[in-house]
């Protein structure tokens, strides 16, 4: 359920601005741990893959 969990985590962050602000301060793998503590399970590789996909789509 990795990519779906990532979507749900992002939805959670959008609905909770304080958590969003906290997550933005985190680096790399810390985000994965933070999400897990909130009940969302995905790996660092899966999070990186989604970021890489954004780079690819946007040409950055």
């Amino acid at each position: 359920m990795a990519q779906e969990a990532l979507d749900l985590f992002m939805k959670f962050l959008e609905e909770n601005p304080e958590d969003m602000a906290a997550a933005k301060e985190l680096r790399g793998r810390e985000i994965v741990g933070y999400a897990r503590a909130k009940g969302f399970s995905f790996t660092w590789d899966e999070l990186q893959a989604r970021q890489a996909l954004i780079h690819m789509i946007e040409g950055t």
Partner: protein
Amino acid sequence: MMELDAQTFLFLILSVGIALGFEFINGFHDTANAVATVIYTKSLKPRLAVVLSGCCNFLGVYIGGIAVAYAIVHLLPVDLLVSVNNSSGMIMIYALLLAAMLWNFGTWYLGLPASSSHTLIGSIIGVGLVHALIEGMSVSTGVNWAKAFEVFLSLLISPVLGFLSAWLLLKALQRFAPDPTLHKAPEGETPPPFWIRMLLVLTCTGVSFAHGSNDGQKGVGLIMLILIGILPAHYALNQASDQAEINTCWAAAANLQNYVNTHREIVDQAIAKEDLSLLENQELEFPVNCGVQHALDAAANIAQKLGGLTSFSDLKDEDRWSVRTDILCLADAVTKFLKIGTLPTQDRDSLTTWLKQLRSPTEYAPDWVLIAVATALGLGTMIGWKRIVVTIGEKIGKTHMTYAQGASAQAVAMATIGLADVMGLPVSTTHVLSSGVAGTMAAGKSGLQMSTLRSIALAWVLTLPAAMIIAGGLYYLFHVFFS
């Protein structure tokens, strides 16, 4: 075996190191392009994907040819190319390499859209223009504008071609391969069905290979300029050429000598189009000016020096350099003949063939250069994945891609870049792939990716001028302090 003094050796290591640094940064800048799809779709584990991509980049450089390498080199005016062994020539190469590396690294670090191709081409134009201004020449002579126009056209058309082809391919897949599995985004932990997985792995491999063959060659061309500048006696001509290759070059020069002798009207038309102010300026820092009127002398010199020669190593050091200079000058004159609109087709075909044969000993890359560039690019690609910085934001929660979209965009990028390689044209791998993705999104009715269009536009309005300014500024500083 060459013997080098310590200073030359250190200079050589530093110079080649800078060029390899450019390729390494290019590799990790473009990692996402190569592996994002296969990792996102769980077709491959990240470690395997980046190693496979790195190896394919390596192979792409090694067996992808050198036509693109010399398309980049020929953006520089021929007067620089025949003077690359003096200080102005060398600082020009350093300025453009450092500028390209700084901009590539800076845009990666700041997460700004950038294209390595636009960066490199902007840098070349920047140093060419500043050089022309310093020398009091017309800016029209600072860059080989005819080649620059060809390159710009390639950079402009390739994303459009990528967009349209990917749009068409996805539409065709929707019609002829309507399997719903293919047209959905990855779900859950399991990888896609075997055939989709193979399709994605194959197209990822192709994109990595194509990236190596096009982007790697840009570094190969610049390293060759550095080698020719620092060790002209050894690298001016391809010393691995056999007697047959030397004979072919000699025959081309003899044919051109005969052509120039018997077609004065063509020569006169080419001379009439030349910038004579450059040729009449005797105080230029670059000691050699190639004018069309010298074509006959150049052809005669080549024919005389190469007649009966079995190996370039039999020539004296200074003769190797003068043969290279004559080849480049004669080739430049032939290029000017080819621009004459009234040139008969038969003449055009003959001149094109002779031009290729003539240039052959000067357009080469030793195996060790290919391997070094391939290794730098491959390692950059492998390490780049580790350096992807996650930026939490709303985009992460809204970005998805179906298997068909990923495969279509990658297949189109692979084919477009491969076609550019065959035609000897540099393209932006990033732009071709991202516009391909945008094409699939438009075909899949996911909306047009405005961010992609913005990125491509930024490369033209930001990267190109920025690289020109940085490279031109560095060249001016180096000129003041070191020339």
